[in-house]
Every structure is written in structure tokens, then in C-alpha cells.
């Protein structure tokens, strides 16, 4: 966090100043570890074991926040009799179908739960039989099936519960049995974290939770970039719910996101499976089952705020199709395109290879550097008919046809690439006005400072004028297919000589208005399902309340208390609420759990909720409110149900539906790992992981396979403070380039000795995909682990570089396979395997034979295996002998790291960090 979100990290340091203990769990020792109380050097890809052991510690020792768990979670609900845990089935849950590689999730449900299948849900294989599509409904993501709200759990009265939490089939007991095998001993064996260190963090977390205190978890792509990424987050959610740390000040699980508005681009999704505000994109369904009523039936549970899904959907249709969206035509619901499976970026790239996708817009993203197995992206894009790239600089995604790595190797020839490329220069954030949504859901308006130069335009300008042009060209069309375009509301006021559209007008449409008079609505509670209101994104509704751009407010915090949320600075969705599920900050009777941790509470005299935040439910709902039969949406939940987006209002310790890989987290090793799965020896990696099996996306062998020794080391990608993601906004800037000029690989002194790597010199990293080169950084910041009696090594590899710009070098992502968490279609960037050898990689046409030689050694069945002997450079590495220009040899790394002699790592227990401990190395940032 100190590295990638340095300014946000000041609040962690502020908390530390006030007595908070900071633990940093990371395979690498970073700038965060340097100032944390303790660094836990976990082995890559084992966080579920670590978090599972914390959950087990809480459950075995009765350390849960009992009253919170009993009242606010689904701990008491009984699970179906036919559910069988992975422990009893050798590593997979009940419902596993080895043929299809997917789960039938029925047995995971609650006892008595109506298993009505939502449209496009995994229950219903709606596309498998179709040779035209070939898509499998099991590729549907969780959000796709259920929005963000999980499945309808049916009538709560039908569900069986045991409030004493003793019934062997109640969630609490199921959980207790499931996590029993996650012991401190397992943590030591799998994660490489010793029992003393584990005890210290377990005690710190449990002692710092309860009525008086809360504990917070912060994570980033280190958790999501795994084939089990969703279950990492689930594991943290379970722990935080058990400890009563959700919906309370200082609690929660905080996602740190990497781009200025990546939260916003999820809320108003440029994502295939979502409509604005986490409404699911409709899935294809047979005639009669694909109208608005069927969509609402599938996605509008009785209880919770999703119970108003029809209001949000109809208002969205009204915002898009205005007067053409009427009750008679289902408000234009039929105008929306239908999805039939996974249309995320990776299958789309495959579609380019196959010629199915022929046109591609790339705006402010650099996939030929930033995506896993980026070579596959370049090869796909070379097969397009047309490509539009909008960016500030001439990024790699715009020039692959001219100077990409495959031009160098001869795999592509410029003259043979038929892709027509348009590079349109974009405006910077200072040259346009609009909102970013930051990582804590805060919308902040930026005012335009200067005009964009020459042809530079905002994406608002481009999209508006492209749409206008397309509509003009189609104006005379009577084709039914063009109606959604021609009937679209597309009249935004413009200003200036370039006819720049008004961002404020767009924001107002997003926030919503009443159709009759065009007046801004105050928030989503005012949205209707009868076509009288319009709102482009219901969760953003209210951001333009009172005809005021609420996101442009800049009233600083003047309370003197730095913890004050400054409610008039920007606008947080929903309804400027700062802590979600804040009903949980008070006890069931509506009183704060403690004076110290008060946030909102029930005022009996005024008969209203009051306090420091805006309640995320009706302000006059009594704490003892019990819904009557037939009550709807938020009024179908009880007055003490805090989790208002869930159909049952409860925090889910166990997910009876909504996930494709299990109702509870279970440890599997990464797809490519250096160790065998010690938790479930029969199942090495996540059985549901989504693999793109292709010749050009080959996997390295598993640890049980002979060829594994050919790629013996774990490699994890990471980011540094001096660069930004795929480098388009940093590698082209002189002083950023100077701070971190070259790609580098962090290796331990032990690995350096094993492979003969010299600090500051070049090394080549090889996988079954390709080989790349990077400078060697020998450092204690990365340490080997002893797993299963073997020393296993990890290499840290920042990924920001590419061939263009001022700071140039090979792209780390070229090394990685595309293999995904099936819930999210996020690839496993954080764990793959490779070999590392000294020297530069082969150039030009010599590269592919070098990589192929490795593949040959790794073997297909029946081929001889010739593993690399420790300390020896493979003889294939002839390219080492090539002359290297002297100016490149003399170029120092960004900072140097004078390490001492290799140390004895007989134990995996890392010495605790404290004030007394002097580091034995100089951090590069200080010597640079």
C-alpha cells in the first residue's frame, strides 16, 4: 500500500501513531513492511490457508462476536441434508461433475430454500446445446447471474434455523467443521509462516475486535489475481463477520484499486455482464422468457433493496430511450443485446484470432503490455480489420504492427498485417471536466483547467460525436435493428468551437430526473417503475440532487477530528453514505455497541435513526420492526437486518448460491505452483479454474509432473510507486523513467547463488509462453520458503515495461498464461512458474527456438526430461554470448542493493521487525 497507494497509506500511519498495530502479509518485504509492526512473508497463493486458520482460531476458541453473529449473519440457518463438504469428497464439494468440470450447486442451498433458477444462472444450462454458440452457461460469472446481490433465498419463513447454533447442519457448525483442518501447523507447512508469528497476528486481530474495537482488512490485486481470488475475499468476509467488523467504523474489507476511476467503471460498467448499478446484463432466453417481467422475476428478490430492481431497470431504460421507452414496448427492454456466456476480454481476444471479432476500440488501456500472455493479444489484434486506439502517448497497443516483439522475432511481418489502425489523441484529466469515483466510492468532480491541444479530445467528445455521426448515417434506415440507435436519447448541450458536450448534463442524466418536468431527483428512493422517472445509474442517483452538482462540493473537514468523513466533500454513492451496512454499527435494539465505536443509533424520542452517517435503510424503521407477510424490498427485512442488499438481510458466512467454485473457501494451489496441495492432496489447483487451452497459451507442468523442474520457480508480478500500471502514463515521463528505468526481477541471495545471478546484471526468465529479460535485483526482501522439506523460491517481477517510451524493456505479462477465476474471469497474474538464468534473452528469430527447447525438455508424455542442474546455465542459452552495447552494460539499476553474504534460512520463522532491528540492506529508494 505504501508503494502503490502512498498517499492513502498516510491514514494507516495515522492509525499506527494512535496505537494501531499494522501487520503486512505479503510474499515480498516492501515499503509497507518497512513501517509495519510485523511483516508476514507468506508464500504466494496460500492466503486461504492463512485466513482459514484465523477463522478456525476464532471458531475453536469461541472468540466470535456472539451477539453480532447470532443476529446479523446466516450462522443459524440450516444447510441441506445432501450437502457434503470437500473434506469428505477428497477436495471437491458435493455436486461436482468431473465431465463438465463444473458444479451442480443445488445441494449447497439452505434447507427449505426455493431453488428457482434465475435467468442465465448456472442452474440453467441455456446455451450448451447450441452449436452456433458453443458457450457454456457455467462460464457465467456470479454477478452475471445475480447482479451483486446473490440469489433469492425464497421465503425466509420456510428456512429452518437453530438460533442456538448447535444443530450439526447449521451454517455455524458447517463452517466450524470445514475450517478445522486449517491449523497453525498447516499455516507453517503451506504458507511458510511460523506458529509464533501466527499466534501474534491471531491474538492481535481477535483482541482488536468486539464492542470497543474494530479491525480492518486492506487488499488489492494481490488477492484478486488468483484462480481462487473470489474465495480469498470470501475468506476475509467470513472472518470479519465472525468478529463483528462489518458495517462499523474502522472495520470492513477495503479494496485498493489501481486506476483513478476503476470503481466508477465498475459502477457504470464498461463490463459485458453488467448494466449500470450492478443490474445484470440480460441473458438470451427462449421467446416468452426474455421479456422485462421475466428479467425482473429472476433478479428482484422479495427482500432488500434489490426488491426495487424494476424501478431501477425501467428508469435506466427511460434514460436511454426516453419517449420511445413505453409500457407498451417493455420500456425498450428488448433493445438490449443479450449475452450467452463469457464475453470478457480474454474470449474476445480469442475471437480476434478466429476472425469473429473484427473491430476493436481501446481507450486508455494498454492490453499488449497489461494483460496476461500479452503476445496472444498482439497476435489477435494483428488479425483485426480495424482498430481504434485513444491515448495520450504512442503506446504499444497502437504500434504492435510496426515494432512489436513479434516483428522482431519475425513471427509477424508489417506488410502482412491487414489491421487498419486509427490513433486518436486523447485529452488529459486537466483538459476536460468530469467525475472520477475513487476507491472508497467517492465521486469527485474535476474542473477543466486548459483546452486540449490540436486533435486531442475527451472520450466524452469522441463518443458523443461518433454516436451522432452513426445516427446521421442511419437516419433514413427503416431496419428494425437500427431502432435502438435511432431512438436513443443523444441530445447533450455542447459548447465551444469543438462542440464539446456537457459532462454536467450527462451526470444529471445518470443521477436521474422526473420525466414530466426534467427536474433532478433526490435519490433512488424516488425512482419509479412506471416510466415517470429516468436515471442512468440508480446507485449514483442523487449525485445531482437539487439541480446541484453534488460531486463538485469541496467543503473541507473543519471539525478538528481527522476521522470525520467530511460529508460535504464530493459525494459518495449511495446517497452520500460513508459506511455501508451501517445498521450493524448498533446492536439489535438500536444502541451503539460502544460509545467509542458509535456511528448511527435509534432515537426513541424522535422515533428516528440518527448519528454521524446516513442510515442505509428507512430512517424511521424501528429496530424491532418485523415485516408482515407480503412486505416488499427493504420493508421485507426486519429492523435488525443490516445487510440490506441481501435478500435475507444477513451477512453470509456461507454462500448457498452465487459462486461457481464452492459455498466456502477452500485452498487450492495456483494453476502453476512450486508446491503440491497439502490441504487436499488429491486436487492440486482449483477444479473450476477457467483455462484457455491453446498451443499459444501452454501451461507449465504441475509439481507432480516430471517436467516441473524445467520451470522450477514461482514468479509473481507487482507494481512500484514510480510507474503506473502498463506504463502509458509513466514510462513516457522523463523523471518517472529516470526513477525506474529498467524492468527488474527481485531474487533472494539463495536463488542468485543457485542460478549464478549477479546483482545489476541481466537475467532471462522463461516460461512455456516466452522468454523475457530483466535486471537482477538480489535482495533479502524476497525469501525462499521451505515447503514439504524443499526450499522453494519466488521471483518478484514488476510488470510496467514495454518497448515504447523512455523507460523501455520486456513486458512481464508476456511470461504469464491466461488462466482465470471462473467467477470473475480475472487471470492469475500473481502466481505462475518460470526458470531464470543469467544473461540477456536471445534476439530475433533465436527467441522461439530457445523457448521451444524449454518446452521440449518440459516434455509431452513419453519425451525425455532433462531438468536444469542447480547452478548451471543451460547450454541453449547461447544468446548470452552476443555482444551487448557498452552503454547498456554500464547503466546502473534504479538504486543498488548491496546485500550481505547468503544467510541460513533453516527456519521459516522471520525475525519480528521492531524499532530495535536495524535493516541490513539499504532500500533502493533511499540510495537512488
Amino acid at each position, binding site marked *: 500500500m505504501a508503494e502503490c497507494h502512498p*498517499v492513502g497509506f498516510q491514514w494507516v500511519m495515522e492509525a499506527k501513531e494512535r496505537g494501531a498495530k499494522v501487520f503486512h502479509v505479503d510474499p515480498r518485504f516492501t515499503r509497507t513492511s518497512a513501517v509495519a509492526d510485523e511483516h508476514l512473508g507468506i508464500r504466494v497463493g496460500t492466503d486461504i490457508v492463512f485466513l482459514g486458520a484465523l477463522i478456525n482460531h476464532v471458531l475453536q476458541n469461541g472468540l466470535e462476536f456472539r451477539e453480532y453473529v447470532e443476529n446479523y449473519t446466516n450462522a443459524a440457518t440450516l444447510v441441506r441434508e445432501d450437502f457434503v463438504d470437500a473434506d469428505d469428497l477428497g477436495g471437491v464439494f458435493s455436486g461436482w461433475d468431473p465431465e463438465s468440470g463444473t458444479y451442480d450447486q443445488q445441494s449447497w442451498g439452505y434447507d427449505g430454500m426455493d431453488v428457482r433458477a434465475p435467468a442465465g444462472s448456472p442452474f440453467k444450462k441455456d446455451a450448451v446445446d447450441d452449436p452456433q454458440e458453443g458457450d457454456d452457461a457455467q462460464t457465467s460469472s456470479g454477478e452475471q447471474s445475480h447482479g451483486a446481490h446473490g440469489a433469492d433465498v425464497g421465503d425466509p419463513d420456510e428456512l429452518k434455523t437453530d438460533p442456538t447454533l448447535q444443530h450439526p447442519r447449521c451454517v455455524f457448525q458447517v463452517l466450524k467443521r470445514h475450517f478445522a483442518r486449517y491449523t497453525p501447523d498447516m499455516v507453517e507447512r503451506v504458507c511458510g509462516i511460523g506458529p509464533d508469528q501466527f499466534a501474534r497476528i491471531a491474538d492481535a486481530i481477535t483482541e482488536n475486535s468486539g464492542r470497543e474495537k474494530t479491525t480492518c482488512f486492506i487488499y488489492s490485486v494481490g488477492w484478486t489475481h488468483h484462480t481462487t481470488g473470489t474465495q480469498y475475499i470470501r475468506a476475509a468476509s467470513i472472518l470479519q463477520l465472525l468478529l463483528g467488523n462489518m458495517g462499523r467504523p474502522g472495520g470492513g474489507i477495503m479494496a485498493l484499486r489501481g486506476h483513478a476511476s476503476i470503481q466508477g467503471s465498475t459502477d457504470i460498467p464498461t463490463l459485458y455482464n453488467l448494466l449500470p448499478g450492478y443490474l445484470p446484463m440480460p441473458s438470451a432466453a427462449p421467446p416468452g422468457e426474455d421479456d422485462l417481467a421475466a428479467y425482473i422475476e429472476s433478479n428482484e428478490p422479495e427482500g432488500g433493496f434489490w426488491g426495487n430492481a424494476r424501478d431501477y431497470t425501467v428508469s435506466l431504460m427511460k434514460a436511454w430511450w426516453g419517449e420511445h421507452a413505453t409500457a407498451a414496448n417493455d420500456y425498450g427492454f428488448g433493445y438490449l443485446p443479450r449475452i450467452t456466456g463469457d464475453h470478457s476480454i480474454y474470449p474476445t481476444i480469442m475471437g480476434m484470432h478466429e476472425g469473429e471479432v473484427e473491430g*476493436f476500440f481501446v481507450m486508455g488501456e494498454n492490453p499488449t503490455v497489461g494483460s496476461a500472455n500479452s503476445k496472444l493479444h498482439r497476435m489477435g489484434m494483428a488479425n483485426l480489420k480495424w482498430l481504434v486506439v485513444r491515448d495520450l502517448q504512442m503506446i504499444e497497443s497502437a504500434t504492435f504492427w510496426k515494432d512489436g516483439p513479434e516483428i522482431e522475432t519475425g513471427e509477424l511481418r508489417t506488410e502482412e498485417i491487414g489491421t487498419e489502425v486509427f490513433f486518436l*489523441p486523447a485529452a488529459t484529466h486537466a483538459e476536460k471536466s468530469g467525475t472520477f469515483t475513487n476507491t472508497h466510492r467517492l465521486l469527485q468532480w474535476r474542473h477543466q483547467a486548459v483546452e486540449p491541444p490540436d486533435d486531442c479530445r475527451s472520450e466524452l467528445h469522441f463518443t458523443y460525436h461518433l454516436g451522432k455521426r452513426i445516427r446521421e448515417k442511419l437516419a433514413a434506415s427503416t431496419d428494425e435493428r437500427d431502432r435502438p440507435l435511432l431512438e436513443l436519447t443523444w441530445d447533450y448541450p455542447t459548447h465551444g468551437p469543438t462542440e464539446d458536450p456537457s459532462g454536467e448534463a450527462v451526470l444529471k442524466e445518470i443521477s436521474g430526473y422526473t420525466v414530466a418536468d426534467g427536474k433532478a431527483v433526490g435519490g433512488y428512493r424516488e425512482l419509479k417503475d412506471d416510466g415517470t422517472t429516468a436515471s442512468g445509474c440508480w446507485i449514483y442517483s442523487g449525485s445531482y440532487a437539487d439541480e446541484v452538482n453534488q460531486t463538485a462540493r469541496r467543503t473541507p473537514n473543519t471539525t478538528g477530528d481527522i476521522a470525520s468523513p467530511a460529508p460535504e466533500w464530493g459525494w459518495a454513492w449511495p446517497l452520500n453514505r460513508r459506511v455501508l451496512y451501517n445498521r450493524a454499527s448498533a446492536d439489535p435494539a438500536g444502541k451503539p455497541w460502544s460509545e467509542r465505536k458509535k456511528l448511527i443509533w435509534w432515537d426513541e424520542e424522535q422515533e428516528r435513526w440518527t448519528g454521524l452517517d446516513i442510515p442505509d435503510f428507512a430512517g424511521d424503521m424501528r429496530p424491532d420492526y418485523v415485516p408482515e407477510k407480503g412486505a416488499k424490498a427493504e420493508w421485507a427485512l426486519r429492523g435488525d437486518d443490516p445487510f440490506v442488499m441481501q435478500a435475507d438481510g444477513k451477512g453470509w458466512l456461507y454462500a448457498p448460491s452465487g459462486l461457481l467454485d464452492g459455498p466456502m473457501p477452500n485452498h487450492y494451489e495456483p494453476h502453476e505452483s512450486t508446491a503440491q496441495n497439502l490441504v487436499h492432496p488429491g486436487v492440486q489447483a482449483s477444479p473450476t479454474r477457467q483455462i484457455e487451452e491453446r498451443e499459444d497459451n501452454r501451461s507449465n507442468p504441475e509439481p507432480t509432473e516430471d517436467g516441473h523442474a524445467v520451470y522450477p520457480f514461482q514468479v509473481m508480478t507487482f507494481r512500484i510507486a514510480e510507474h503506473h500500471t502498463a506504463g502509458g502514463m509513466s514510462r513516457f515521463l522523463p523523471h518517472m523513467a529516470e526513477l525506474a528505468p529498467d524492468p527488474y526481477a527481485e531474487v533472494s541471495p539463495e536463488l542468485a547463488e543457485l542460478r549464478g545471478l549477479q546483482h545489476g546484471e541481466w537475467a532471462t526468465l522463461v516460461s512455456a509462453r516466452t522468454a523475457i529479460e530483466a535486471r537482477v535485483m538480489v535482495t533479502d526482501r524476497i525469501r525462499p520458503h521451505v515447503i514439504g522439506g524443499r526450499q522453494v523460491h519466488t521471483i518478484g517481477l514488476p510488470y510496467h515495461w514495454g518497448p515504447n517510451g523512455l523507460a523501455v524493456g520486456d513486458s512481464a505479462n508476456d511470461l504469464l498464461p491466461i488462466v482465470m477465476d471462473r467467477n470473475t474471469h480475472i487471470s492469475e497474474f500473481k502466481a505462475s512458474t518460470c526458470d531464470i538464468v543469467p544473461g540477456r534473452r536471445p534476439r530475433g528469430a533465436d527467441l522461439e527456438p530457445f523457448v521451444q527447447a524449454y518446452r521440449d525438455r518440459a516434455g509431452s508424455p513419453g519425451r525425455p526430461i532433462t531438468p536444469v542442474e542447480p547452478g548451471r546455465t543451460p547450454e541453449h542459452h547461447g544468446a548470452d554470448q552476443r555482444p551487448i552495447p557498452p552503454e547498456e552494460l554500464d547503466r546502473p539499476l534504479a538504486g543498488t542493493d548491496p546485500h550481505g553474504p547468503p544467510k541460513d534460512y533453516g527456519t521459516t520463522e522471520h525475525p519480528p521487525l521492531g524499532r530495535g532491528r536495524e535493516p541490513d540492506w539499504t532500500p533502493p529508494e533511499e540510495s537512488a
Partner: protein
Amino acid sequence: MGKTRRRRLPPLLRQLTDDPTGRGVAAQSGRSAAIRPRNAKDTADKVVDSVCPYCAVGCGQKLYVKDEKVVHVEGDPDSPVSRGRLCPRGSSTPSLINSPTRVTTVRYRPPNATEWQDLDLDTAVDMIADRVIDTRRRTWQDRRHSDNAMLRRTLGFAHLGGATLDNEENYLLKKLFSAAGAVAIENQARI
């Protein structure tokens, strides 16, 4: 030294009379009295409230504009998010905006060409509109054969990017491309 000597009172007396903390005029030399902070408002034509374009923390920025050019950036001390701070990336904002390598005109590469060409912006937008219409027509899918399910879409063109864009921009992109029938609309959220 000479300038200092011209002051009426020596530093200690200045402190006793005007500057009890000793951090103001008492510590000032003639030279330091003449130094202006480079972010002084009077050196810029205007100071504009903005937000950092790099990561998602959302630090407040004050952009200093002179002669229609961003000349300087400071962290916004009023921001409850960042309290005036910026990291190396955020501090590099002026060089991002004024980068000499920034491409500010349209570049066009016809199929199989070896070099870029110039192209008028309006022509480029027009050509792109034609390609969208053409691809959409040729790759349109009305219904799925097996169950006659309505698809009403094209997989023929795709979009990638959005996490660096404004909410308003993403909104128009999703709205336009969905109306055109495109479903493969994606951004950085999966990387």
C-alpha cells in the same frame, strides 16, 4: 549581508518586537524576503481544482495555469482524502500534460502499410462510424438457432478501457455501444 545590514533592527530585536516565535521576520534575510513560492497564486493566472489521474485514492490537486498552460501542481490541502499530499506519480502531472512525446494529432495506418499517415480528425471519426456500421451489419446475430432466443447483438466489434476515464464517458460508451448491439464491452477491472 549588505541587504541584511540595511534592516532597521537586528534579528533579536525584530523577534522581541514583531515576531515572538522567531519564525517570521526575525529569521528573514533580504534574499529570503524576496523569494516567492513557485506556487504563489499571483504567479499563475488561475488555480483549478482537480483530482489526480493515477491510482484510485483520489488525491485532491490544485492545477496552476498560466498562459493557458498547466505550469505547476500542488496537493490540495483541503482534501480530506489526501491532506495536500501527492506521490511521485501525482507530482508528475504537469509533465504528463505537457509531455513533448505526447501525440496530439490523428495518426492513421492503412491495412498493410509500413508507416503512419496524417488524417483529419473529422474524416477519422467519419471513417470509424462507417466501420462500426459495416461490421455491425455483417456480424449481426438476430436469434439463436437452437431455441430461437433473441440475441439482437454483434460480437463483431469490442471495446476495452474505462478505468482511466470519467464516469460520464463510460456512461456514454456503454449507452452507445449497447444500443448498437455490442456486448464485448470491457475495461481494466479484470486485470
